């Protein structure tokens, strides 16, 4: 169906539920959410105050669902939401919001602002005001199955490459495997070493695992653009693949939104419980570590710090596992200020890194990460999200900070003895 203002307003009316109504009524205009948002702190521009980013949604709520608002609308005293206004708001709802959830974490009355932004994006998308970059990702997801247009032959090329590099077979469509490993397009295209690391770790742990030819892509562009129908289609592909192969656990890759989409929203999107567990790769590694299945040798001796992906740590509650893993292979692991639950976003989550016109603002916002890194002065930066990794690398390059970035899964795999692999 073609996007239009009428459709967008209708969707906005539909997405306003009891939590959103209570959130708008509860807001005490304290401004704490502004101080929690790196787009506000690094620019000082009040338009980036998270609750302000929801102003058109608030007006729809007021005009449609409050007595005073409806009276004002009847007598022509309220300002209708227009196409021009939503066009202006695109920057606030997409470019300058990574859905990192820091605003929700600090709100003194418990408003889940990021939940509201997600809902607002549904209306923005329906009205045709999503950014071209994310629209393109969505189109490719629908037509090809991957937001970056990655097809199975590309995955098979990576599998072959890893098999040559490490001499470990990569299983595809192995029915009855314990784990079904998902990849993000980013890992297929930019970081083939992630798949190699998984192969080494699973081999050493003695676990049966597999990739799925019909569901290798974990990234969910539907969540990013704000289109629940599309998000459901993407989750359904994974569910069908996992159930066909009868796996016990689906492993979300080092990709923040893939994890949120599948782990926390997936079952609600398809309307029934999964027949399998969903875990982030870091959770699985944490379990292997606790069970004594992760045997490493040697230590990194340079100064390492860890960037917590927002969807993993703040939205997903996975905080201690990555620290335990770091300590298994690093002698000199130091924490950045605000590490863990309140870590600052890299600036590129929630689809923001796919928006070309948002690049300048992203680099401005990266000053927050720069300031965190300046405090601890690490030799290397470790993270567990492929998107964070590229955004971090670009930011570090822009600010001429020579700090290599590595993925945690790869770092662990590098310490697995050759005989173990």
């Amino acid at each position, binding site marked *: 169906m073609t996007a239009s203002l009428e459709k967008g307003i209708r969707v906005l009316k539909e997405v306003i539920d009891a939590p959103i109504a209570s959130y708008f009524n509860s807001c005490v205009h304290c401004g704490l959410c502004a101080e929690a948002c790196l787009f506000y702190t690094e620019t000082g521009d009040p338009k980036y105050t998270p609750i302000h980013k929801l102003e058109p949604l608030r007006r729809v709520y007021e005009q449609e669902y409050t007595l005073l608002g409806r009276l004002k609308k009847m007598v022509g005293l309220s300002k209708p939401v227009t196409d021009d206004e939503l066009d202006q708001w695109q920057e606030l709802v997409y470019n300058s919001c990574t859905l990192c959830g820091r605003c929700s974490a600090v709100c003194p009355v418990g408003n889940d602002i990021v939940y509201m932004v997600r809902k607002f994006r549904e209306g923005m998308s329906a009205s045709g005001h999503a950014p071209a*970059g*994310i629209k*393109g*990702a969505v189109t*490719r997801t629908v037509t090809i199955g991957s*937001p*970056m*247009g*990655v097809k199975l*032959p*590309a995955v*098979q*090329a990576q599998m*072959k*490459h890893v098999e*040559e*590099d490490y*001499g470990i077979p990569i299983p595809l469509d192995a029915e009855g495997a314990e784990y079904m490993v998902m990849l*993000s*397009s*980013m890992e297929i*295209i*930019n970081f*083939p070493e992630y798949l190699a690391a998984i192969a080494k770790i699973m081999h050493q742990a003695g676990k049966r695992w597999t990739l799925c030819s019909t569901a290798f892509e974990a*990234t969910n*562009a539907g969540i*990013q653009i704000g289109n629940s129908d599309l998000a459901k289609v993407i989750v359904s592909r994974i569910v069908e693949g996992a159930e066909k192969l009868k796996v016990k656990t689906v492993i979300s890759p080092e990709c923040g939104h893939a994890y949120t989409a599948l782990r926390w929203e997936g079952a609600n999107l398809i309307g029934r419980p999964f027949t399998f567990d969903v875990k982030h790769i870091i959770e699985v590694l944490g379990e292997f570590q606790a069970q004594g299945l992760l045997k490493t040798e040697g230590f990194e001796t340079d100064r390492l710090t860890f960037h917590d992906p927002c969807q993993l740590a703040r939205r997903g509650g996975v905080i201690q596992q990555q620290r335990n893993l770091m300590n298994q292979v690093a002698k000199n692991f130091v924490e950045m200020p605000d590490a863990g639950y309140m870590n600052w976003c890299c600036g*590129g989550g929630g*689809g923001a*890194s*796919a928006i070309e016109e948002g690049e300048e603002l992203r680099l401005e916002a990266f000053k927050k990460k720069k300031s965190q890194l300046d405090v601890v002065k690490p030799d290397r930066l470790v993270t567990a999200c*492929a*998107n964070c990794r*590229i955004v971090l*690398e*670009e930011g570090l*390059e822009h600010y001429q900070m*020579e700090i290599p970035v590595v993925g945690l899964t790869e770092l662990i795999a590098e310490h697995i003895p050759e005989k173990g692999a």
Partner: protein
Amino acid sequence: MTISNDKEFKSALAGLSPSQQRQVAARFVQAVFPLSNDVRIKAALEAAGRAGISDAELAIVAQAANTARVESFTQCGREADWSAQVGHFVAKAAVACVKPAEGGGNLAWDAAMQARMARTCQTVADGVGTENREAETQYRILEAFLNS
């Protein structure tokens, strides 16, 4: 010496000194460099190919090669352009060539693998699948290096 598989290839590379590894790695990357033609990578390969390269010189070319690598990442959600991705893996291979000897591991093997990825991206971009002869090309390059 004849090399006919990756086991022999990796073993022979591991037996080289860091300087020799760098030189032969540069030759592996030279074989795929025409797919990129980035001047920063060219400089890195020229430096890596010199026997007496100093650490300071290496650091300069490594920084430039790394910039080429970072600039050629495909961003999350953007359409994968396999032709452009060739350049990324050529840059990644070049970075392996000029990384510091300390902690460099089997840098020639790393460079060879990234060069193979570059070739695979090129065949994908050309629509001719993923099969190519880059590994065999690298075996012949190493043989020539060892026999020289």
